[in-house]
């Protein structure tokens, strides 16, 4: 069965520092890959997605993610974190077959220190 692992439950980053959130997946074939962000009391907002092509994907709010097939990873990065980035981040996968259910990781809570 497919699974998504986000090994870091919490991460604290100083404002202005760089950020990398890890995501590894277990799947029979390369799935579609997503990162969502959830601010306190809010729903999930799509940051970026990978379907095919360039393995470095640009998203909203200055985020990017890199797909590495050999490592079954899809890590999220941002060069300079802002206090407003404090939120919970979810990595998700879906099979390459039209409509399909997302499988989410357990999330990583990002805390930004001044």
């Amino acid at each position, binding site marked *: 069965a497919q699974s*998504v692992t986000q090994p870091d439950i919490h991460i604290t980053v100083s404002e202005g520092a760089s950020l990398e959130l890890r995501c590894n997946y277990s799947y029979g074939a390369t799935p*579609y890959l*997503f990162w*969502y962000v959830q601010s306190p*009391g*809010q*729903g*999930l*907002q*799509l940051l970026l*997605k990978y*379907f*095919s092509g360039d393995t470095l994907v640009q998203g909203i709010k200055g985020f990017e993610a890199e797909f590495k097939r050999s490592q079954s990873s899809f890590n999220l990065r941002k060069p300079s974190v802002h206090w407003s980035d404090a939120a919970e981040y*979810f990595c*998700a996968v*879906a099979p*390459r077959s*039209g*409509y*399909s*259910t*997302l499988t*989410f*990781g*357990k*999330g990583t809570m990002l805390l930004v220190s001044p």
Partner: protein
Amino acid sequence: EAGVVQSPRYKIIEKKQPVAFWCNPISGHNTLYWYRQNLGQGPELLIRYENEEAVDDSQLPKDRFSAERLKGVDSTLKIQPAELGDSAVYLCASSSLSGTSGGFQETQYFGPGTRLLVL
């Protein structure tokens, strides 16, 4: 373009009471999902609709949960009776496909969720 709309945003009820959640998807999105998100976890699928047909309800606890999507647009998720363990955030998402016959790609867009607390 309006996003996915859910109501109510918050609901507090006593156990054994019924509760219902409503979702209006993005216009033109034929596929609708209900997810449940427990505290500290990622969302997990409850049910998926394609138009008015429930095509995946294998994770829906059918003894107490029911859902409907009349006319293939709005959807309602109901719990009767609610239990303490049902306290969670209930998220609705809708999606559409893009791409060609060589490969269709789906993106799901989520509503703000309904936060349910069962006392």
